[in-house]
């Protein structure tokens, strides 16, 4: 039973990136024709191309046996998605080799190939065929798909009239019935509500229980911990840890804390470091009121961010945005924006600002930070972004009994708000310690 499902040897992928920032990634014929004599001249002189290269994957090797559930962990730009794209044959590696034993189902997004104008029925066949199913196979699974998605009465309605929840359920249902021997999944849990995420996770667990191989890429460390027996940590396109999920996650968290942010951090990673370079963060630290650097806070603590930056090109003022992402879905949960100055800033100016977030009543969990630095009047190009480049904030319950109305394992919602329960008639004012009359209706405020 311990037969190989995937064998990866020395896999590497190199991307060419445009010479100047903000340039289109594709070429125009006009450009190439004009550049031709110059390039020929350069080649004749033995000068190299001006195109910069970026190694998304440098040297990745591992082996996965059948029935294993493997989580790929790593920050943005570590090469997780590139690895998945190579394994699902969307893009080709520059070097190395991967052998795949068995039928692969890749789920890189929910709703691939769905079309708004087509009905649910038409979309099932379209999406199924795109994912690699034969028409007869889809027809056989049709009822099961409709059942899983719970869209029976809307099956002949165009998808554009679907609610986003229905749309998502139907799209995932098609993919879930693909029955591959090897399932590659990327971030699909990042969409949809908690119930949907649970359903997806459940379906993936079923796949794993069936003895099929699952290859799961996610930012959601909680889901990785719950689902995967083995974790592979990627950093800068290399495997830095490979072992039981818990030990890999420990290494991951350790690495995140050691990470220092400066002007150069991740500049080559357009995913998390965008912008024109007119202004750059030069330092970020998260501290408590005592000035000690830390990333773990109890609910109700004050979080202090110390942000330094340098101006490299004239800026019309400066403003910072501090936003918290959800560790589960990665959407931005809340944000604050402060204008530092509205005056013109000359190149060379440096400054440090301190932003306090007092009484943060968000539920315990991990919250990656999204930091943005732009002009006072929002402009589309002069900015800098650090998206998940720092360790995530970790919020713990602390000792606050008033707010412990949550279940640690089910992060329902984000904010912790004070609440009180009254039992009996709504008019009754007495407060009870415990629900003594469970049969009667109760009101939760």
């Amino acid at each position, binding site marked *: 039973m311990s037969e190989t499902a995937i064998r990866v040897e*020395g896999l590497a992928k190199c991307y060419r990136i445009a010479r100047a920032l903000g340039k289109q*990634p594709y070429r*125009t014929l006009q450009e190439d024709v004009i550049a031709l004599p110059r390039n020929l001249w350069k080649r004749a002189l033995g000068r190299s191309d001006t195109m910069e290269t970026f190694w998304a994957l440098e040297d990745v090797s591992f082996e996965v046996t059948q029935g294993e559930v493997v989580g790929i962990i790593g920050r943005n730009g570590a090469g997780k998605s590139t690895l998945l794209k190579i394994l699902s*044959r969307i*893009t*080709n590696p520059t070097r*190395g080799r991967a052998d*795949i034993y068995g039928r*692969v189902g890749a789920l890189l997004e929910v709703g691939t190939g769905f079309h708004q104008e087509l009905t649910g029925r*038409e979309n099932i066949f379209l999406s199924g065929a795109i994912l690699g199913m034969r028409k007869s196979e889809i027809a056989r699974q049709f009822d099961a798909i409709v059942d899983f998605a719970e869209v029976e009465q809307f099956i002949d309605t165009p998808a554009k009239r679907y609610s986003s929840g229905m749309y998502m359920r139907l799209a995932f249902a098609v993919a879930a019935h693909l029955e591959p021997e090897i399932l590659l999944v990327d971030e699909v849990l990042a969409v949809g509500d908690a119930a949907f995420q649970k359903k997806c996770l459940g379906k993936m667990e079923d796949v794993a229980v069936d003895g099929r191989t699952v290859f799961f890429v996610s930012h959601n460390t909680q889901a990785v911990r719950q689902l995967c027996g083995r974790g592979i940590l990627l950093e800068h396109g290399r495997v830095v840890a490979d072992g039981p999920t818990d030990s890999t996650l420990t290494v991951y968290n350790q690495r995140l804390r050691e990470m220092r942010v400066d002007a150069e951090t991740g500049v080559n990673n357009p995913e998390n470091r965008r912008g024109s370079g007119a202004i750059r963060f030069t330092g970020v630290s998260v501290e408590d009121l005592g000035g000690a650097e830390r990333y773990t806070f109890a609910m109700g603590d004050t979080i202090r961010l110390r942000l330094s930056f340098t101006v490299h090109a004239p800026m019309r003022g400066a403003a910072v945005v501090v936003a918290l992402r959800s560790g589960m879905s990665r959407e931005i949960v809340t944000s604050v924006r402060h204008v530092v100055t509205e005056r013109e800033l000359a190149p060379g100016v440096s400054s440090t600002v301190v932003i306090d977030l007092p009484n943060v009543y968000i539920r315990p969990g991990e919250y990656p930070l999204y930091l943005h630095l732009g002009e006072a009047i929002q402009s589309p190009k002069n900015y800098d972004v650090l998206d998940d480049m720092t360790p995530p904030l970790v919020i713990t319950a602390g000792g606050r009994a008033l707010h412990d109305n949550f279940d640690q394992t089910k992060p329902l919602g984000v904010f912790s708000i004070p609440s009180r329960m009254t039992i009996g008639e709504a008019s009754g004012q007495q407060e009870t310690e415990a629900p003594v009359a469970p049969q009667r209706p109760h009101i939760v405020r």
Partner: protein
Amino acid sequence: MTASATVAAAGRQPDPGRRPSVVIQPTSGWAALNLRELWTYRDLLLILAGRDVKLRYKQTGLGVTWVILQPLVAALIFTIMFGRFAKLPSDGHPYIVFVFSGVVVWNYFAAVLQRAGNSLITDARLITKVYFPRLAIPLASVFSALVDLAVALGVLGVLMLVYGIMPTWRILLLPFFIGLTAVTATGVSLWLSALNVRYRDFAHAMPFMLQVWMFASPVAYATSIVPERWRLLYSLNPAVTFIEGMRWSVLGTSSIEPAMVVLTSIVALVVFIGGAFFFRRVEQGFADSV
């Protein structure tokens, strides 16, 4: 890399009876066409073509009317301009039927080029999110445009009935000329769609190119007005043969010669095979550049 990879390969040799179902390796240069894989995805090809047809008839309010009206109006204008005003010959047929038969084939050809040429850009999201033989995308356009062609051929039948033109045994060769059109159109659009991914300004050049090509083809006039000595050079344009071939098989007479058919068939095959290999060569980079 080499050292560790060799150790891994030597240390864990899989049992010899088991071979990987997929080997992923860098490819460079010319890749094989891999028609077998395309065949396993034949359902996808048909479903994609079906999607194009459904969307075309769902999204336009006029639907079928549009497919009928557009070539009819074009034929009417050409009839007035070239037949009435310029008094060009039409090989002895009513000018409107003569022109319409040309417009029908040309429209199919142009529709394939236009749709298939842009298809990779239109379906960029698919290309970056899921693997399947990329050839399926432009090929689907070749099939979906056949539906419009069928409708237009029906209109042509009605027109012929109105003018009392009876088809002869030559109509049996109509499928051959439609096939020739399809092969030429596929070949050209494989080049176009692949180039379109690499060079975005191709999208702007395409309508212009189609227009020039149309006037260089006997859509609105007869090949007989082209001087005899230029005829062979003229028929290097494959559109000349399939338009005149269409007229020959439907209307019975036309200035077509067997040499032209042979020449065009060769040109079409060369363009088609070359296009398929070119497409395969550049398809590796599609996901990185769309």
